[in-house]
């Protein structure tokens, strides 16, 4: 029993906590105070009103505010302030009747529908749907046609009609509470149903119900005053706010002042109800989410817009370690990334997620970027074309395409390059295409963006592109919507989209992750073929070492925002030089022999906010030594046994690395 009791109700926004949160909002408090004071004033009208509501003073007719009449007088010399106070009685009473009926009907109905379910729920839903579709005002008028001057009848009717919407809200809240674990726990431990409802369900629905009731009170007030304005439901000469607006309307040719106090008090009171509703709603929502939504800003341009003059030529740019010998392959470098850093806005300031990444992409090569989730590989890929979300920004480094620095470009400048010089495909192809357009039309739009051709020519080019990505029956595919395509076909369409501008660089961010294994190999084969046919260079971001082995020429291994190793793929697999890479190779289930447990790398990756300046893999590394914690670890060049080349590793002990078992 105690174990079950230990499944305590979680930190709910209980009524008292909700109240406390609501009280912290000034507008809501002011509105509540205003309403309380107003109600008191109207109830006490006989005591505090300076004049009787029907007392005429034909000498001082239609005066503006004076000392004797604070809000002026109407066309019969009656004091406006007094009439407002007396009139408020009727008006506020109407609102109270309306909201009372609303709650009396909707609370039990919503509870029953949500809690009991079954046919009760279905029956109530049918009634609710019907009531919601009835044109409310006409029914109210029909009631008034029958019951003459009874505002109560009208307000009750409106309350009944409005209860449909609130019933729905109560029902959905009850449904969500019913499924919570602690309710099931309470039930199992024998708490009776009524007690469950009282202790667990009711507090949860308090918030939404108050919101709905306040908003409804605002509407009810508008309706009540509107009906009074039309002289329905009130018997003159009894004062009412709506009636006073009507009287004032008759006098607009002469004097508009009377519209102000009458309309003003209605507007203020409606506003007060509305603000209370908004306040309670905000307070309820805040109770559910622990952290406020992160600040979203427009994507920022890098600080130095140096696009006017070209940057240094690629061959002159020093390597990350400063003493990197110029390697013979750099003459045909297509893209050079130097010291790229990306940060995201966090609750405590910007958090770096990509830290000084550098690499060079040569013509016609496939470069893999591999790492586990959260290492920064996708962010790196997105930042190359300035496609980061609004809360991220590049805060260091350069991305050189030829002699242009992509990080320093304006949105307009880089938009001209996107799709044309550098194209990109993403992870989930089915959501990467606009669901409202035929795929053929989407690709045609991109074609016409890059080549100024006629629609017919664009259509032909679309079919060409679809053939290039080996889609069966290109014409039929072009006439489909994205949701009608399989994952593999959708990814081929995305590739066709990317190829439309004849790019020299293709960035593929986890292009096969969302696809079935059997489809994956088809896409990878396609990438190989495209590289052969077009000579374009490919950056392939993935977490799957099989993909690296299958397609890539070279690969970067990323860990905690940094490049920890870079090598030709063969060397990377045969002789890893970084403990992380080594560990990953050892963990590969395909290398595992059946004696002993499957090796794992102990520990977990640190979140970005906790990355140390020194080695970030230290806590999980079996070669770690005291000097690993002293300072930032630089990338070192590793001599490559099988030829000249660019192997790098970020480890000061790489020479001591020995695999746990021979490969």
């Amino acid at each position, binding site marked *: 029993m105690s174990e079950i009791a230990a499944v305590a109700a979680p930190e709910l926004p209980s009524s008292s906590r909700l109240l406390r949160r609501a009280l912290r909002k000034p507008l809501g408090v002011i509105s509540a105070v205003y309403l309380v004071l107003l109600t008191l004033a109207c109830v006490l009208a006989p005591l505090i009103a300076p004049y009787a509501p029907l007392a005429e003073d034909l000498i001082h007719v239609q005066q503006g505010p004076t000392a004797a009449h604070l809000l002026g007088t109407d066309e019969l010399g009656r004091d406006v302030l007094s009439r407002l106070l007396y009139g408020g009685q009727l008006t506020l009473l109407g609102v109270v009747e309306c909201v009372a009926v609303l709650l009396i009907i909707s609370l039990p109905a919503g509870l029953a529908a949500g809690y009991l379910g079954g046919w009760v729920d279905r029956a109530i839903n049918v009634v609710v749907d019907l009531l919601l579709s009835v044109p409310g005002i006409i029914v109210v008028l029909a009631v008034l046609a029958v019951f003459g001057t009874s505002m109560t009848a009208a307000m009750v009717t409106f309350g009944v009609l409005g209860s449909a919407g609130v019933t729905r809200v109560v029902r959905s809240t009850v449904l969500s509470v019913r499924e919570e674990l602690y309710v099931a726990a309470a039930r199992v431990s024998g708490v009776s149903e009524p007690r469950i409802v009282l202790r667990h369900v009711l507090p949860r629905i308090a918030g939404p119900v108050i919101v709905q009731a306040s908003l409804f009170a605002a509407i009810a007030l508008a309706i009540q005053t509107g009906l009074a304005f039309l002289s329905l439901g009130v018997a003159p000469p009894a004062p009412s706010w709506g009636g006073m607006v009507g009287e004032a309307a008759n006098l607009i040719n002469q004097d508009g002042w009377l519209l102000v106090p009458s309309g003003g008090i209605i507007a203020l009171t409606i506003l007060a109800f509305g603000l209370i509703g908004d306040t309670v709603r905000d307070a309820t929502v805040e109770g559910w989410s622990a952290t406020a939504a992160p600040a979203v800003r427009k994507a920022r341009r890098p600080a130095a817009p140096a696009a006017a003059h070209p940057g240094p030529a690629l061959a002159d740019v020093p390597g990350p370690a400063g003493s990197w010998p110029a390697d013979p392959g750099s003459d045909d470098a297509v893209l050079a990334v130097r010291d790229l850093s990306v940060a995201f806005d966090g609750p405590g300031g910007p958090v770096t997620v990509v830290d000084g990444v550098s690499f060079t992409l040569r013509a016609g090569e496939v470069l893999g970027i591999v790492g586990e989730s959260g290492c920064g590989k996708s962010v790196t890929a997105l930042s190359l*074309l300035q496609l980061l979300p609004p809360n991220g920004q590049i805060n260091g480094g350069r991305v050189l395409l030829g002699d242009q620095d992509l990080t320093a470009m304006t949105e307009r400048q880089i938009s001209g390059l996107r799709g044309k010089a550098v194209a990109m495909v993403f992870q989930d192809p089915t959501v990467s295409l606009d669901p409202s357009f035929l795929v053929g039309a989407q690709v045609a739009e991109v074609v016409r963006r890059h080549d100024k051709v006629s629609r017919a020519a664009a259509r032909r080019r679309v079919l060409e592109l679809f053939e290039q990505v080996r889609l069966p029956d290109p014409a039929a595919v072009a006439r489909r919507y994205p949701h009608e395509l399989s994952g593999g076909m959708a990814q081929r369409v995305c590739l066709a989209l990317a190829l439309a501008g004849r790019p020299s660089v293709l960035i593929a961010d986890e292009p096969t992750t969302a696809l079935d294994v059997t489809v994956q190999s088809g896409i990878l084969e396609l990438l190989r073929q495209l590289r052969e046919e077009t000579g374009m260079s490919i950056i392939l971001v993935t977490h799957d070492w099989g993909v690296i082995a299958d397609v890539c020429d070279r690969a970067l291994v990323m860990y905690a925002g940094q490049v920890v190793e870079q090598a030709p793929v063969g060397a990377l697999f045969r002789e890893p030089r970084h403990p992380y890479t080594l560990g990953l190779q050892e963990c590969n289930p395909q290398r595992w022999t059946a004696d002993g447990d499957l090796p794992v790398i102990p520990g977990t990756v640190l979140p970005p906010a906790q990355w140390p300046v020194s080695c970030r893999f230290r806590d999980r590394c079996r070669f770690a030594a005291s000097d690993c914690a002293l300072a930032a670890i630089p990338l070192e060049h590793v001599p490559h046994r099988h030829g000249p080349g660019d192997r790098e590793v970020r480890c000061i002990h790489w020479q001591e690395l020995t695999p746990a078992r021979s490969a």
Partner: protein
Amino acid sequence: MRSLIIRRLAVSLPLIVVVTVLTFVLESLVPGNTARAIIGASGSPAAYQRLRVELGLNNPLWYQYWQYLDQVLHGNLGTSVFTGEPVSTLLNQRLGVTLSLVLLATALCGVVGVLLGVVSAVRGGGVGRAVDVLSLVGLALPGFWVAIILAAVFAVTLRIFPATGYVPPSDSVGRWLWALTLPVIALALAGVASVAKQTRDSMKDTLAREYIRTLRASGIGRRSIIWKHALRNGAIPVVTVLGLVFVSALSSTVFVEAVFVLPGLGSMAVTATSQHDIPVIEGIALYFTVLVVIVNVLLDIVYAMLNPKVRRA
């Protein structure tokens, strides 16, 4: 698509039935029934009984309702207690006025609201705050009061627009629009804010989707992304809100037509209420309900046109 319409109509039929039942039941509650109202207090009991039989009021209630329904299906909505004219004639004369008013107001809400919503979603900041304030203002200011203020300022004081009266489009389209300007603005004010808000939320949500990123990565221009792709996808909830705006505007004609003295269904409803003219109220309830049903069907069609998954299902 056709099955969609049929399904929607099937669901709506009970609604029309319910509304007619409601109003019919209400009529039977009139203290002193119709016969008494016609005969007056001075009529002899025999004459009263004869009239009752003539009007079929001696039959059980459900039979009376059945007869009423039968009449309605044949286009006979009864006669006005007050003027003696057939209800259908009375209402058909006024239908055009109310429809012009409500359709123009809904269209205005749509155009202005969507513009405001898109701008505030894309640009944020000032426009967004303006939309929030407008929302609050639209909610707080009672519709009839706004109508009066508009009339007071633009009609009475500045004399730009007429304060009252309606000009049919067959007479002059220009003057038709001119006479309807102030009433349309009064009706549209509350709706613009809710359309703008919904558009803004919907656009913000759509602009965060992956396919927008693909379009950006393909080099498609900003204008095309916002107005062609994002708006097309974000329009669906906006269409729903526009439907609600239409229904709300229909209800508000009751007040606005009274202020601007327009000979529409709304002002007729008010007159009929104060005259206890039940057949007319029943007729208007029926007309309003049918209009709401038609709008819902049209909305479903638009929704299907916008959403290929529904269309191709």
